[in-house]
């Protein structure tokens, strides 16, 4: 299956239809069509397949707010780092890409070097297993992610509860995609001709959850998979809509995405989390776009059990991550890109996470000649 979805011959055949269509759309618009891939995994897949170079001139692909690390507010990042720094007795469990994200003054990596206990886990299940095996340690798992991660984190709390673990809690900074897209599309300055919707998130939420993109904002949208052929198909379906002046939310990833999504995952999310207002980098406060643990679960809520105070956080000076996340500019338009901000010394979070727009662009597409 995977091989078929990567079959270069099939890919080239699709491309031979896609490229003229992109040119046609560009001709009509009088500029390249601008499509936004909402998901960070799409950003990586596009960079790795070289798709951008194949459609250059007639199509622009911009990254959206779909990299969880990138959209986490500076204040949340500072709070996480302050927790690690002030409580060396805690084991902070995290996905690897949070490690090097810079807070205002430090990062988890720096705090680890100073003595904080930071453990990298590939899944919340692994973190809860670690907690069970280390009863002498208090484990705090950083719940960073979207609808794709939240059910697994909820499940880890369920496991901790059923096993009677007293040493496992979650610091939830989970976020929801539909509310932020609503916020994004309400921006009058936005110039996006179509949205590639995040396939993984849609497996949980279902296609219907994104009907508002087309219905309310009249922007064409296609749920996209992650193989080059999935992406090309989704782009093709988007361009077809643009050409015919239609706007619909189409499922371009039907082998995994259903109309209503995954009910089990949605139920456990609802049972364990409640929607709250949260701060997004680049977007500010977005109502009901975050997930906090239900009050009845406060024993597993690290925000309740280990509160930390941080002074007000300001994003680093000159950092344009906010504009990149809104699709207003490309990574290379940021004045810091590849100059002051590089993967080794990242200023903004888009350069840190492997799914970040700037990191993916730097790693796979940028050439020194551009600076």
């Amino acid at each position, binding site marked *: 299956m*995977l091989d078929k979805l*990567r079959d*270069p011959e099939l*890919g*080239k055949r699709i*491309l031979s239809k896609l490229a003229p269509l992109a040119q046609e759309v560009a001709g009509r618009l009088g500029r390249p069509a601008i499509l936004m891939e909402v998901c960070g*995994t799409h950003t*990586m897949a596009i*960079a*790795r*397949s*070289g*798709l*951008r*170079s*194949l459609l250059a001139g007639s199509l622009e692909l911009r990254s959206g707010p779909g990299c969880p690390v990138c959209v986490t507010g500076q204040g949340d990042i500072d709070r996480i780092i302050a927790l690690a720094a002030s409580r060396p007795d805690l084991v902070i469990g995290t996905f*690897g890409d949070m490690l*090097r994200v810079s807070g205002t003054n430090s990062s988890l990596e720096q705090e680890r070097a100073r003595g904080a206990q930071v453990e990298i886990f*590939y*899944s919340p299940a*692994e973190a809860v*297993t670690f907690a069970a095996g280390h009863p002498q340690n208090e484990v705090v798992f950083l719940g960073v992610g979207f609808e794709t991660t939240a059910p697994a984190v909820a499940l880890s709390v369920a496991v901790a509860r059923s096993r009677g673990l007293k040493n496992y809690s979650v610091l939830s900074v989970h976020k929801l995609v539909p509310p932020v897209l609503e916020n994004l599309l309400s921006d009058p300055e936005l110039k996006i001709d179509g949205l590639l919707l995040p396939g993984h998130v849609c497996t949980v939420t279902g296609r219907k959850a994104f009907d508002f993109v087309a219905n309310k904002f009249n922007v064409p949208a296609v749920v996209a998979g992650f193989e*080059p052929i999935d992406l090309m198909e989704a782009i093709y379906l988007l361009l077809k809509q643009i050409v015919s002046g239609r706007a619909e939310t189409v499922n371009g990833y039907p082998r995994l995405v259903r109309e209503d999504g995954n009910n089990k995952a949605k139920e456990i999310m609802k049972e364990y989390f409640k929607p709250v207002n949260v701060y997004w980098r680049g977007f500010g406060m977005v109502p009901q776009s975050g997930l906090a643990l239900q009050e009845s679960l406060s024993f597993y809520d690290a925000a309740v059990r280990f509160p930390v105070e941080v002074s007000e956080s300001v994003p680093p000076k000159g950092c344009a991550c906010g504009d990149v996340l809104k699709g207003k500019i490309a990574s290379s338009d940021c004045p810091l890109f590849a100059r002051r901000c*590089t*993967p*080794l010394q990242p200023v903004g979070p888009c350069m840190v996470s*492997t*799914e970040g727009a700037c990191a993916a662009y*730097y*790693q*796979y*597409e*940028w*050439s*020194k*000649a551009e600076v």
Partner: protein
Amino acid sequence: MAEEKDKDIVLLSHGDGGLLTHQLLQDFFLRYFKNDLLDSLTDAAVFSSEPGRMAISTDAFVVDPVFFPGGDIGKLAVCGTVNDLAVSGAQPLYLTASFVIEEGFPFTDLEKIVASMARTCRDAGVQIIAGDTKVVGRGQADKVYITTTGVGYLLPGANLGYQRLEPGDKVLVSGCLGNHGLAILLQREALGLDSQVVSDCAPLNNMITEILKRFKGIKLMRDLTRGGLATNAKEIAMSSGVDFWLDEAVLPVEDSVKGITELLGLDPLYLANEGKFLVVVAVEEADELLRYLREDLSAEYACQIGDIQAGKGNVYLRTALGGTRQLNMMAGAPLPRIC
């Protein structure tokens, strides 16, 4: 009871230079590494040399875990230094080995590691002729660290260097990419993945000596350790000022490695190898070198993966779809302590 138990593990006194140190040397290092130069137990090993140029290389090994599918820290410590010498065009001759051992490390594990080093030395045709052992307190080191230094003679006629690369040269790799880094990751993290991924850790000097003898068009070699193919190719490109153009479709990666890296969001081109090298060769010898590697040296997955073009020190990958992307250096290890 306690005495019985203490016999099984390394104590701080094994590193104090006294009787227990002597015992450790006799029971492990001298027994397994046995050779005339080492057996003399003088402060320095003294050996005669022949005229010609020599190469020297040193490396510290801190891999975690110390045992992994396809090898262990001892095998890695020998291969790492031997391979650094080999890709520099040298025939490795002698090694030194220094051990930093954490108090409480089991002797059974130490013996396995030392035996594995001895076996790898025999395979590579090198001898360990000097060494040192220190023991540090529990928690002051993690199990065992090994530093090896190796010397060797440059092979006559080997002429390797960045300055020799020129447009048209072909780029080959000696086999499948990414196994070592992934094997370590899977062994270390309880990912619940049932996999067959085995480290490629192996000495390369015998293979390299054979090809250097036969192919004068070999211009540069590099063992693809930390940072993998991508980072090493980029380093060579930047140092020599030419561009690499590689073909994604032909890069050799085992299916299991492909599948698991996909799942974990890793790129096999950035994962470490410990038994693979890249070679840049003049175009007229490229086909024969590939045939020789595959058929005569059993490197069945050796591949011609691209060529050198005039440029500015970039590495380009032609994707399977016909697009291009760049490969830049790895920033921030996906995983520390892989070697």
